């Protein structure tokens, strides 16, 4: 039996139901996604390695266990992919970069090991912007596998740096994927590809076995077909890890016990000023849906601190250190994007006092945000101010600029504060804008407040069907 789109575009929850009802088996399911990764992956520049042998072995084990009555939980027998900055035994880990295209780190990163223990089936290492964008790329063609393309319109970028996870989930090459965000690498591709993304709180998920770009800002999280799916994946990968001392010993359970009362969500002040009109329209429509079940608190204002500057300085300095030997070796010259061949050197001239000041700003911002959000579960805003960018143009020239009066700047669209202080975010499709490209709604939560924003996002998705839309994939 060949599994069709109706099965392959299912959520993790639905696939699990099908597996347990015997509608299809883990091997059959893995085979279907592997075939799709092979046939459609190249069209979207989504895949680096297909892990067929490992996938079939894991799927067979999942099938044997299910038959024997051993059920590892909601991810048992569910295929997935990982951004190729996560090590996995028996495969290459290229970091999306030509100088590392033959690199083998022959161990499972903690996230891959936890998913293996949860019964999930690793099918692919997915494409990404080279070195997760740490060299300062300025256009989409910045990976040795070429630009990632959104399945909604392959002339447009699938976003970065998690370009492969976004495209692969959108085209149903996998039901979910693990991505990373330092600043934007989950929320941008989630928007560009019209899928749901979860950026966990800094420290929620171990980074052991993941490429380091910025030790104090890197986060790993899932991209999937729904908030519910992302929550189930988070429950499997979260928690303390001796291999990553920053991983917190805080449990994340899903489903969380439903809290009494409505969720309270701030609406970011001036959230629609300076954004594309279609993005603003979709956000306004999303607010109407949120208002059906949440208390919306208007004019939520973020701390007046230079968070974007601080985040930039932190990332530049930490990336320059993480890649110090690489930069000195001259191997950056082998990178795909011309600007990446030299851009990483800028971080080498950040002064120590500037880095420390950025960390102090981070502390002040975290305290101010805690105060401002004390009575809230989080706040909402458009995830991006535009739809994704055309391939072949510098980002700066992607869309006409919309002037924003300085006193009306909304603040954190773009996530500088959220990433600087490590706040969780859930990004869900909320419609379509220019060129029929997806738009997205961002829920940003309080530290370790994933359950509250996931719950709100799940409720939003229960009342809308944007996350159920499928891109046109026929030849």
């Amino acid at each position, binding site marked *: 039996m060949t599994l069709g789109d109706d099965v392959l575009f299912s959520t993790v929850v639905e696939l699990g139901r099908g597996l347990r009802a015997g509608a299809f088996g883990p091997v059959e399911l893995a085979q279907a996604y592997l075939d799709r990764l092979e046939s459609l992956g190249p069209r979207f520049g989504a895949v680096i390695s297909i892990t067929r042998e490992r996938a079939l072995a894991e799927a067979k084990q999942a099938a044997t266990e299910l038959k024997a009555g051993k059920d590892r939980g909601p991810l048992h027998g569910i295929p997935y992919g990982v951004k190729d900055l996560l090590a996995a035994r028996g495969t290459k880990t290229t970091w999306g970069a030509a100088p590392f295209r033959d690199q083998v780190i022959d161990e499972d990163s903690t996230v891959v090991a936890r998913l293996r223990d949860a019964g999930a089936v690793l099918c692919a290492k997915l494409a990404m912007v080279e070195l997760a964008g740490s060299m300062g790329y300025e256009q989409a063609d910045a990976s040795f596998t070429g630009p990632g393309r959104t399945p909604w319109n392959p002339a447009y970028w699938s976003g970065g740096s998690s370009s492969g996870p976004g495209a692969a989930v959108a085209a149903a090459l996998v039901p979910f994927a693990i991505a990373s965000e*330092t600043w934007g690498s989950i929320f941008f591709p989630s928007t560009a590809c019209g899928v749901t993304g979860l950026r966990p709180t800094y420290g929620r998920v171990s980074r052991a076995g993941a490429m380091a770009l910025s030790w104090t800002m890197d986060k790993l999280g899932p991209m999937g077909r729904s908030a519910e799916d992302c929550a189930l994946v988070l429950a499997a990968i979260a928690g303390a890890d001796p291999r990553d001392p*920053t991983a917190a010993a805080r449990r994340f359970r899903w489903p969380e016990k439903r809290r009494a009362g409505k969720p309270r969500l701030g609406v970011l002040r001036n959230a629609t000023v300076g954004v594309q009109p279609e993005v603003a329209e979709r956000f306004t429509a999303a607010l109407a849906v949120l208002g059906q079940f949440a208390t919306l608190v208007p004019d939520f204002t973020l701390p007046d601190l230079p968070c974007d*500057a601080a985040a930039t300085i932190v*990332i530049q300095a930490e990336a320059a250190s993480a890649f110090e030997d690489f930069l000195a070796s001259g191997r950056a010259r082998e990178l795909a994007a011309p600007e990446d061949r030299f851009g990483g050197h800028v971080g*080498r001239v950040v002064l120590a006092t500037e880095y420390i000041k950025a960390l102090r700003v981070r502390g002040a911002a975290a305290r101010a945000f805690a105060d401002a959000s004390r009575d809230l579960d989080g706040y909402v805003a458009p995830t991006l101010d535009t739809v994704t960018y055309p391939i072949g143009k510098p*980002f700066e020239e992607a869309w006409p600029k919309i002037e924003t009066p300085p006193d009306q700047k909304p603040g954190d669209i773009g996530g500088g504060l959220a990433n600087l202080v490590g706040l969780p975010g859930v990004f869900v499709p909320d419609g379509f804008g220019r060129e029929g490209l997806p738009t997205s709604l961002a829920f940003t939560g309080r530290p370790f407040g994933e359950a509250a924003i996931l719950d709100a996002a799940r409720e939003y998705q229960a009342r809308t069907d944007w996350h159920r839309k499928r891109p046109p994939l026929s030849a």
Partner: protein
Amino acid sequence: VPAPPAGAPAPAASPVPAASPAPAAPALDAAGEARMALLVALAGDTIKPDELAKLRPHVVELVGMAAKLRSTKLPGSAEPHGGLIGNPSGVP
């Protein structure tokens, strides 16, 4: 749209399209020029001369961000003493 840090997909902070001619060199003060000279010394022959011109706007941007941070007043001794860089003992 925020200035794009490394690792972020936001539009480029300085409008230097790939493979386009370098724009006119923006001005740097003496401290900025010193930073540029340090960058040249550190990079050595891993950077081509024409790329140095393309890097210049990024150094200008860095200097601007640093100035923004420098002008941000924080309470100094009233800031919490801990938590800046974790616990050096390695024990949380």
